[in-house]
């Protein structure tokens, strides 16, 4: 079930919060745990077994690890948990990709395809469990708490399907006891409304344009239209993901959790390095803390650092999906980061204008690498962006003018909302009636839009 669906907002959420607030504090974890299971089961009735199984295995390993005396015992349980988690992730997410590549290399059908559907949120909850188990191993946290606490941590529905990737130590205290004030509920609701607006009013709207470009076919578009498409997709993915993260934060706060921030105005970054400090912060943090630093980080010489970075970015790419374009995408950032680290990073940080232009130029290109799974199609698109047209350009100036007329304002609004402006406005209007009014308007407008589209793209895809 999506957060941005009428069913979630008007059925699941009121019912859940009714149960949650009626329940005395000691029972709230149970309500949240069960509610989250219901939430998951509504979208994924079968794979919920996989998730429960993962929780049990990881909790068992975590308990054993907390009880084990020697380092050897802890290592065994860590290995067990990791093998299970990564194994499940490999089988469900990467096996077919792996098999396809092995078969291609071997030149014959060596491995069969499993054709498994990707379990909802597996990439996120697996990482959360890994982070908890790893923290236990290192000793950052001492105990995984009760089963209910651990289970609630893994599958609490605000962050279950699309993050942020919360670390256990951030919420362990709140899982035991959390203070809930009216003010917090109010703030949570504000965040939820604004997140909903970001998803429904900005991301969904601008996705229409990107779909249109895809529908035309990449071989027929002109260079400006190709750039407009890339920019539209950049806005779409940002407002979609940011909106979702805001909603997660808001829902968390309404229950007394402080879910970490996932985005910090990424499109105002001054370099690719800076961009990744601001984009999907919790994922970057995961790879830094659990891959990069354990490998030695940057303390073992330049070559080792570069190797570590390479691995981290190949994995970051792969995490986003089982396809070569994601790996290319991740490695593209690896190249940029290495270049920035060794050559022009300082320059960009110092000269804001160049930094911004650099990011605004590269980010849309990188998102195209991310979005277009088929490598030959991707090549066509990048060529169109570069102005190398192989075929006849059918969508040229005439259509461009129309697109600008139809979507120009939307691009402007998106651009404005991708700057510091909304964040500063939010801070400035805190605790005023203006903010209430804005949130209210955004909320009901979003609901209206959702109602019109009835949670399906029919409105957007009118034939």
């Amino acid at each position: 079930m999506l957060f941005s669906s009428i069913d979630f907002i008007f059925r699941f959420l009121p019912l859940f919060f009714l149960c949650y607030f009626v329940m005395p504090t000691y029972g709230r974890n149970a309500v949240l745990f069960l509610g989250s299971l219901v939430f998951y089961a509504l979208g994924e009735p079968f794979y919920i077994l996989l998730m429960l199984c993962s929780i049990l295995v990881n909790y068992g390993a975590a308990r054993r690890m907390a009880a084990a005396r020697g380092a050897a015992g802890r290592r065994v349980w860590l290995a067990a948990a990791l093998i299970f988690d990564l194994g499940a992730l490999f089988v469900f997410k990467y096996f077919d990709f792996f098999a396809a590549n092995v078969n291609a290399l071997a030149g014959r059908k060596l491995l069969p395809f499993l054709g498994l559907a990707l379990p909802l949120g597996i990439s996120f909850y697996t990482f959360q469990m890994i982070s908890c188990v790893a923290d236990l191993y290192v000793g950052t946290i001492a105990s995984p708490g009760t089963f209910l606490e651990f289970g609630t941590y893994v599958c609490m529905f605000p962050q279950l399907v699309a993050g942020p990737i919360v670390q256990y130590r951030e919420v362990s205290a709140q899982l035991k006891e959390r203070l809930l004030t009216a003010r917090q509920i109010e703030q949570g609701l504000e965040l939820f409304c604004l997140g909903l607006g970001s998803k429904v009013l900005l991301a969904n709207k601008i996705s229409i344009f990107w779909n249109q470009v895809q529908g035309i076919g990449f071989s027929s578009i002109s260079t400006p239209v190709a750039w407009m498409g890339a920019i539209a997709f950049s806005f779409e993915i940002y407002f979609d993901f940011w909106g979702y993260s805001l909603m997660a934060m808001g829902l968390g706060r309404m229950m007394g959790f402080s879910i970490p921030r996932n985005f910090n105005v990424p499109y105002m970054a001054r370099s690719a390095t800076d961009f990744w400090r601001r984009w999907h912060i919790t994922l970057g943090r995961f790879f830094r803390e659990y891959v990069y630093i354990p490998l030695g980080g940057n303390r073992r010489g330049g070559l080792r650092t570069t190797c570590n970075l390479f691995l981290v970015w190949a994995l970051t790419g792969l995490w986003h999906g089982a396809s070569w374009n994601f790996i290319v995408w991740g490695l593209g950032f690896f190249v940029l980061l290495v270049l920035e680290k060794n050559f022009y990073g300082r320059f960009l940080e110092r000269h804001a204008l160049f930094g911004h232009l650099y990011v605004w130029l590269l980010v849309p290109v990188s998102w195209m690498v991310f979005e277009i799974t088929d490598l030959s199609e991707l090549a066509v698109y990048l060529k169109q962006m570069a102005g190398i047209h192989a075929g006849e350009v059918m969508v040229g100036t005439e259509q461009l003018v129309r697109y600008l007329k139809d979507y120009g304002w939307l691009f402007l609004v998106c651009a404005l909302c991708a700057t510091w402006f909304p964040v500063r406005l939010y801070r400035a209007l805190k605790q005023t009636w203006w903010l209430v009014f804005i949130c209210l308007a955004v909320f009901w407008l979003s609901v209206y839009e959702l109602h019109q589209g009835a949670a399906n793209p029919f409105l957007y895809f009118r034939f």
Partner: protein
Amino acid sequence: MKKWKRAMRQCPLAICILCVWGVLAAGKYLPDLKQQAGQRQAQENAQEVPEELTAYGAYGGALAANRAPELTREELAGKEPELLPEGEPEEDASAALDDGEGAGAGEEPQEASQEEVPGEKSGGAKGGAPEKVKPEYITYDKKKTDSPYYTDPGKIPLTTEYDYVKVSDDYFDDAVFIGDSRMEGMEDYAGLHNTTFFAKPGLTVYDLLDDKFIKDADSGKKVSIGDMLKRHTYGKIYLMVGINELGTGGTDRFAQAYQDVLQKLRKWQPDAVIYVHSIMGVSPAKDKSDPVFNNTNIRDKNYAISKLTDGIHIFYFNIQQLFEDENHALAQELTFDDVHLYAKHYARWTDYLREHAVEEKKQ
């Protein structure tokens, strides 16, 4: 009171949202109840609705909730009694159109008023009057369907047989192209520049003539296709519509509406050749997964459309054949969204039109 004031100060947003929700819910729930009562009444009145159809009322309702809430729900509620099992009314209706045609074609096509007098058989076989060309079909084994919107016709109509000629692009100078988003694709990518397009995404046969979406160059006002057709004279009318309304009522109702449109076109443009396009199919992926927007439904509608053509004034183009795979579905590699062609493939369509022109209208 004090408590309320404090709550209002602390969570104004929560309270506002709840209040508005309460009001809206109340406002929505009451009409819903009324509508349900009306629907029950309508169902009770409609004795002749066969059992399967009433059974699918619920299914249709669920679909409606999923798909296009307002439209379909209302249509279903209001129109269910009209969904008769076999296409009798549409046969009658097409006969009525033929009569009008025959009478009109005999002497004075301009005398469109004759159309208002159905049932009067006059023209038909008279003197040198042209004979109606019946559409030909590819037949296949019907499949059982369980939809309130369509049945499997078991037939795919072919392009009307005629000695078409090849023409150059100036043939389209006095043509008008009317249709939905796929006709709009034609407008954008087919390379016909010196012609008129009235195309809009989401256009249906039900609002085709009345939807005011055209900006009139003279007055600057928004006008409808009907207005334009009344005002200007066109030599050829190319029409493709029907995919958006696949889930709005059954095929009979669709055929009736389509026929009404054709009658009006004939009335307003008696000298124009009308080329009716088949509704282009959807890709196999969509065909398999969609209970409404699938090729069986489209074939049912196409079969109904083809019966309204006569090969004298109204010609049927099985445009689907240009883009179909071996199962007569829209070939998957030609489309991104399972419905629309990639821009570069529209050229095939234009070529087809260039090769299929009715040069002189038969008198």
